[in-house]
């Protein structure tokens, strides 16, 4: 059996995906101590987990230091890495939308969009035929329209509560997002049997 390295995002997605692997019959310890650890070895299954920032998972997988990984569709769309997208795990489901102050229209001359996802935002507005200026922020995106930095924001929406609490309304639904199982193209070939087996076991859990 070949050794498998899996890149996982830290936090809630890790826990959910880890539980899915257990449900799929992988012999993993129920409790995994993951305070500050970045590498977890599971010798019984010949699996090693790399714990990474969600945005970095596709990078590890593309460079082949991880064979497979679990990444949000948002990071895949934003980074456009050369990885195989194998399975929709249907966990941490949410969507990307544009939002702004209620009853406003975008500035006609140079509409400004604040976002963590410059590529997704740029592609979306290009496709609907609008030329916009992107302002890249790293967090608290909702601030931007409130203080006049941008006309719209493009961000992840799960319940819509954050938008509401900040007095913003959703304008356009851009795309659905959920966690995906991705694979490095070489690993997908060289460890084909192992990865295929994992995919089909996970597929049964997803239903």
């Amino acid at each position, binding site marked *: 059996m070949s050794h498998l390295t899996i890149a996982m995002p830290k936090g809630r997605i890790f826990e959910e995906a880890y539980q899915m692997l257990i449900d799929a019959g992988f012999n993993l310890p129920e409790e995994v101590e993951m305070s500050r650890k970045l590498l977890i070895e599971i010798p019984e299954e010949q699996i090693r987990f790399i714990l990474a920032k969600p945005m970095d998972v596709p990078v590890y997988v593309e*460079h082949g*230091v991880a064979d497979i990984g679990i990444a949000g569709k948002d990071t895949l769309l934003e980074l456009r890495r050369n990885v*195989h*997208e*194998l399975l929709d795990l249907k966990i941490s489901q949410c969507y990307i939308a544009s939002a702004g102050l209620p009853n406003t229209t975008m500035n006609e001359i140079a509409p400004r969009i604040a976002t963590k996802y410059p590529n997704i935002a740029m592609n979306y507005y290009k496709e609907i035929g609008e030329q916009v200026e992107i302002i890249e922020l790293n967090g608290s995106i909702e601030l931007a329209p409130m203080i006049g930095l941008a006309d719209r924001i493009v961000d992840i929406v799960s319940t819509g509560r954050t938008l509401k609490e900040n007095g913003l309304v959703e304008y356009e639904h851009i795309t659905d997002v959920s966690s995906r199982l991705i694979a*490095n193209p070489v690993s997908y*070939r*060289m460890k*084909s049997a192992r990865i295929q087996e994992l995919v089909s076991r996970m597929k049964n859990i997803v239903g």
Partner: protein
Amino acid sequence: MSSIKMFEKPLGMRDTFPITYEKTEKVRQIGREFLRARGFDFIQTPSLEYFDTVGKASAIYDASLFKLVDSQGNTLVLRPDMTTPIARVATSKLLKEKIPLRLSYFANVFRAQQSEGGRPAEFGQMGIEIIGDESVFADAEVIITVIHLIQAFGIDSFKITIGHAGVLNCILKDYTESSEQADTLRTLLVERNYVGFEEAVESFDLPITKSNALLQFISEATNFVSIGEIEKYVRKNDSLKYMQQLMELIEVGGLTQYVALDFTLSSHMNYYTGMLFEVFAQGSGFALGNGGRYDGLLQHFGTNVGATGFGIRVDRILEVLPSEPSPDQTVAIIFEEVLFAKALEMAGAYRAEGKRVTLQSLKGLADEKAFTKHFDKVVYVSQEDGAE
């Protein structure tokens, strides 16, 4: 004022240090002898080509091209691959002399980086092109050659995945309702987005038999062991028969174990008209190389002959190759000025034994200890004690 520091190189450009240089040279030697023995002639083409000819015809995305302007205002490109320049020279000249042509190359190609590092913008590529032979034997020769070549480098753990544009097109056409749907699915396969493929199939509202067939195809298509398994998805056609023949020829060559079928394999370039393949090896996160039949490219240059070939990346072979210590024996001869003649003579003798000899005057040596530790053997030619 420029913000570039003196030590910087353009994004993705790398220096080749002696150890890498020697490794590359070894790869070149092995490859060159191997390919020449199989009747391939090496050629070289210019580093610069016109954007309107080679640049536009190349399979490399526009954003990855290095562009320059010549003194007449024409846009030039640094060659982004070797297949396109070879197609140019073959159609304009070489094909008039000999058909079919068997050409090979070992050259650096240039692909601009978008943003991050981690991969070179200039790298060596080695490959072959068989031009003017449309038979399945030419394709079999290409695949057998690439397998033997990789073995010649001493790489054991590798895989070739083969698909066929014709088979895929037939499936996509038969199970969708419009060519737009087929194109959407093909684009998703180029991106290797299997999840997107399934979603798209479901969104098309196809008759249930068609959508089920597509969904089942995508779940099995990367794992076919034999050509027989695809037959239930595709009506009898020439492409399928062609693949059957090709796999039989590979079996005759005794190389079936290195080959896997992948009928989702698709290229963003429409000039890949027939079989196409990718080469993967354990040890690199990226494909070693790829190849296939590209009859459409020759048409672009105005000739109607078939062509097939492969290119593999030298930088990735270096990643995969085990590192070996250099077999060379190095000798430093450090001499006093007046004994130069003796030192010369001694150097000649050592070189005749096949050793790498460095001749260094004691006068010009700043740090003797730091210098001598780089050599297997150090010989002093001095007046007090003679040759040591």
